[in-house]
């Protein structure tokens, strides 16, 4: 079972002016971060349960907390995964999803099973280092709702045509 109380508690502690402004000693700042991180865990279970209930599918959900530095084991190592995008705003938004991936070609489908244009771009941190790649696609997410996209890594171009043929016939 999930629980949002630990995160609530951590957020309450972080209302202290030292937490808001960073006027605390290093060990105190580290402890603020520790409390927040400890609060995330049970909250992620809560969100997973909610998503399972709302989407009717129990999944092994993964919350990539380091997406902003392009780290996400599921998208980097899986050939097939689902991306659920949740929109907390009271209006529909178009959001460009960026996920770190291994180099390759990808087939992305929207909630209606239609193919979505996607791109794989090289990352700037690869100046002289091992090349890193990010998969991009545009997700349309309803107000206060979520959309589920599926991603398949395709080994080469002709199997991409095979997949899209299959999906076209499936759509028919």
């Amino acid at each position, binding site marked *: 079972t999930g629980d949002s109380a630990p995160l609530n508690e951590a957020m309450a502690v972080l209302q202290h002016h030292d937490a808001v402004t960073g006027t605390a000693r290093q060990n105190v700042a580290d402890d603020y971060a520790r409390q927040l991180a400890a609060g995330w865990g049970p909250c992620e279970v809560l969100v997973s349960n909610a998503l399972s209930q709302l989407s009717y599918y129990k999944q092994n959900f993964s919350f990539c907390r380091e997406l902003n530095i392009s780290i996400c084991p599921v998208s980097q190592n899986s050939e097939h995964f689902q991306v659920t995008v949740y929109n907390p705003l009271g209006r529909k938004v178009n959001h460009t999803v960026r996920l770190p991936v291994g180099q390759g070609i990808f087939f992305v489908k929207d909630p209606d099973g239609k193919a979505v*244009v996607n791109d794989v771009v090289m990352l700037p941190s690869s100046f002289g280092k091992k090349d890193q790649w990010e998969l991009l696609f545009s997700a349309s997410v309803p107000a206060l709702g979520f959309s589920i996209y599926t991603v398949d890594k395709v080994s080469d171009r002709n199997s991409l045509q095979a997949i899209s043929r299959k999906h076209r016939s499936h759509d028919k």
Partner: protein
Amino acid sequence: SQVLAIENEYIRATFDSNTGLLMKIDNVEQKLSLPVSQGFFWYNASTGDEKSTQASGAYIFRPTHLEPLPVSRWAKVRLVKTALVQEVHQNFSAWCSQVVRLYPGQRHLELEWTVGPIPVEEHWGKEVISRFDTPMRTNGEFYTDSNGREILKRRRDRRPTWRLSQTEPVAGNYYPVNTRIYITDGHMQLAVVTDRSQGGSSLKDGSLELMVHRRLLEDDARGVGEPLMESGAGSTVRGRHFLLLSSVSDAAARHRLLAEEVVLAPQVVLAQGGSSLYYAR
């Protein structure tokens, strides 16, 4: 070509192909054009001087000079153009880089900056800013928000309710920016929406600056008892600034809608393939 530019249906950002720095923004939709030079600078943190023993620290921002030093006057750049994104990757130094992005259908320019670990070998604390310089006549005025709701007018070296005798020309003009800071010449408006609270100011007409990272060597004697010097993962920071150039009449709608989308950004959750129905039936 001599001109390095990225664009979508609403915006064009042009870069100086000699320096790699941003040099102009065009709002194609409203036919507005503004020379904007953006770069990273750092203030040398005071450790106390003949005027005052006060050092820069966790509570106090007090630079030794009015002028910050440039991290670099040029950047090594790489251009990426695809159907879904146009990006200019700028490398200013080993500890400062930025990606300037434009997605189709967006009316703002996204600047994802990465700063740190800030070097302090020469024993100078550094307070790093991102600064936008334009020829706008702003008459010593700029605007910052309070918690994303109220917008406050700020006037250089002034206070609204008492006669200020300015003793700190830089720090005395810095204000808290929770979600946005902007300048206007009455005709067009340049706004920077932030993805977190930062210190910001406009120290010259047409100029906007936001403090993105600090690394200090002295305690400021206000109670913390140690310098502001992250040693772990916090020594490197990554964030984003969202740049909006628009007509004054259109500006509020633009920055309000954009700031909402930044503060309440969509959340992404992944799931490896293979799932089972949640309900038995």
